[in-house]
């Protein structure tokens, strides 16, 4: 249990014990509560007062499967709000095995200065000059890092977009194969890392100094119980390993809620060409891998390796949100183009979602035609090249809307919505509007409740309550480092109890029925809302763009009908 504080202005590193107040926290809970405590809410997100927090979940590096999620937090340059951006890969488990609770990057290196931060097998941190890697794309960068430090190395890094401090810049995370294809994409945290002068965080995976487990026997039993629940879940056992998250393309289009052509329609023409079923077929025909393990200790295997017609690696993993943003929103119903765009975004280091939506806004404004695959690839290449338009695009959809004076910009607090249109799935509108992160589906994704017929997506009744329940649960699970797929198998009183026993055994305490996820989730959300309030955000910011209230979405031809008062009641705690 230790914090590593790195001051980029002074090039100093201090190791601290974790204060009592932060015990029992990890991941999002820790990054958000620490940001609220340490970052001036009105600071320039790209200035020296902002801090970048990197925290594995409380259970990352423990024997509990599916816990290699890393939380990266800061004040977001995209939204101006607090931000936790969450990624899979290998780094969370690597940090957990070293007993590192958080790394805090402070200050700011002089303009043009670039460093690596390396954590060795013993957990010792050092800053290494990295000028020769300036401007390098992430795949080449990680290849070189693994050549220097060995294959058992995890990397978090930025590409050119982060160095340009573009507000849609991502932080890429290396997967089990050493590809930087997992992303903390949301909120432009790559720009914060770039502003600090940090090109990569390099972590040795061979650590053997994980924090002790208070009651190892009870922990073992509790892990067994949770694992059984996750394995018995039909989605995790059957659907995810075959189609991954791309399995959502069919249901969401079938429900008329797949925002297409910059959210002008709820069904994409030709969506069956880019659905998970078709993707799996193509991958199998070409000798790729439709059932891939992307993250350390994963037992679900929702990842895939997409290959081209010659069987050569293009990207991993092709995910639902990327397929939607770069395919649905742009009207490009072609998986080869989408896979190429995914690889380009990962390589340049930009969020696939913000980038896809930014291109869609440009197309909607008449800059290019919807469906123009070549234009889409050229546009993303421009981000990497740092051209004037590339920098506008790399600053996300709101920047593109402003550039073209185009008002159909599907963002909340500056961040793009996700692959569920709030006019046809009302609960997503509640989550987008009220999440302290700006529009963020992972904060409380309601689609499962619709598909399991617990809720009618077009009826306002129950949407706020469901979003609230999920937002609290996700804030708590994101604190533990567990992935979303495993989380959803545990969204029941029995699941919460089983998971509470894992936490209890880890910490040597007995959790009450209200402790997890409710009390923990509320604590995290309160800190996040508090930061945003002090940063100047009010309930008037918890609204969707006007067109969602006015422009009916085909095929249901409905608009967003949750009232402001109802939205404002989402966090009435």
């Amino acid at each position: 249990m230790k914090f590593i504080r790195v001051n980029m202005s002074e090039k100093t590193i201090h190791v601290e014990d974790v204060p009592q107040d932060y015990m029992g926290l990890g991941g999002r809970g820790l990054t958000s509560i620490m940001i609220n405590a340490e970052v001036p809410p009105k600071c320039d997100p790209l200035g020296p007062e902002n801090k970048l927090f990197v925290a594995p979940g409380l259970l990352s590096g423990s024997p509990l499967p599916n816990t290699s999620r890393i939380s990266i937090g800061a004040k977001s340059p995209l939204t101006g709000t607090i931000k936790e951006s969450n990624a899979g890969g290998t780094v969370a488990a690597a940090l957990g095995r070293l007993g590192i609770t958080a790394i805090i990057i402070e200050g700011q290196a002089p303009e043009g200065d670039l460093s690596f931060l390396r954590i060795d097998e013993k957990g010792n941190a050092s800053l290494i000059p990295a000028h020769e890697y300036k401007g390098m794309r992430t795949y080449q960068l990680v290849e070189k890092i693994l050549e220097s430090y060995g294959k058992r190395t995890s990397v978090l890094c930025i590409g050119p977009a982060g160095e340009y401090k573009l507000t849609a810049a991502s932080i890429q995370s290396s997967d089990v194969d050493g590809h930087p294809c997992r992303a903390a994409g949301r909120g432009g945290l790559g720009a914060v890392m770039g502003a600090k002068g940090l090109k990569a965080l390099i972590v040795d995976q061979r650590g053997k100094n994980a924090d002790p487990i208070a009651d190892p026997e009870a922990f073992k039993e509790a892990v067994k119980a949770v694992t059984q629940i996750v394995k018995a879940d039909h989605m995790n056992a059957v659907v995810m390993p075959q189609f991954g998250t791309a399995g959502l393309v069919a249901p969401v289009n079938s429900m008329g809620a797949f925002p297409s052509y910059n959210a002008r329609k709820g069904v994409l023409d030709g969506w069956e060409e880019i659905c998970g079923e078709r993707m799996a077929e193509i991958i199998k025909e070409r000798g790729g891998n439709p059932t891939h393990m992307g993250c350390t200790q994963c037992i679900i295997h929702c990842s895939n390796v997409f290959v081209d017609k010659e069987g050569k690696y293009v990207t991993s993993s092709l995910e639902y949100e990327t397929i939607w943003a770069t395919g649905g929103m742009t009207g490009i119903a072609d998986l080869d183009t989408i896979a190429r765009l995914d690889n380009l975004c990962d390589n340049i280091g930009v969020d696939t979602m913000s980038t896809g939506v930014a291109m869609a806004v440009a197309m909607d404004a008449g800059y290019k035609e919807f469906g123009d695959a070549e234009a889409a690839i050229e546009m993303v290449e421009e981000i990497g090249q740092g051209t004037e338009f590339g920098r506008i695009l790399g600053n996300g959809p709101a920047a593109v809307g402003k550039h073209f004076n185009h008002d159909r910009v599907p963002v909340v607090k500056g961040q793009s919505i996700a692959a569920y249109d709030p006019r046809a799935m009302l609960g997503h509108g509640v989550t987008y509007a009220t999440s302290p992160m700006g529009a963020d589906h992972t904060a409380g994704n309601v689609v499962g409740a619709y598909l399991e017929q617990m809720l009618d997506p077009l009826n306002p009744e129950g949407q706020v309550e469901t979003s609230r329940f999920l937002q609290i649960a996700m804030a708590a699970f994101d604190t533990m480092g567990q992935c979303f797929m495993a989380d959803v198998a545990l969204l029941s009183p029995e699941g919460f109890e089983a998971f509470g026993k894992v936490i209890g055994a880890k910490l040597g305490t007995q959790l009450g029925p209200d402790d997890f996820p409710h009390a923990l989730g509320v604590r995290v959300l309160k800190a996040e809302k508090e930061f945003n309030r002090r940063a100047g955000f009010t309930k008037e910011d918890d609204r969707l763009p006007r067109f969602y209230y006015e422009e009916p979405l085909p095929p249901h031809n409905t608009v967003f009908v949750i009232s402001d008062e109802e939205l404002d009641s989402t966090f009435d705690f």
Partner: protein
Amino acid sequence: MKVRVKLFGTYSQRFPGYQHSQGIEVDIPEGATVKDLLAFLEISESQGAVVIVEGRVLKADDKVRWGVPVNVLQAIHGG
């Protein structure tokens, strides 16, 4: 009553030679419900089946209508 059904997720794997562009045509009694259709396709409730018609998720007791295409999918909670 003949109904055109498109199968998604793993369901199509049960029907050798299934062509997705065509789907399959099933012959079920007039007034058959979603539950009847799933039973005909030998899909049990534990397999997370979702039946969507004209953009709406149907409940087990909802009736399937002649001439209206049906999508049978598997529930997913997010991506």
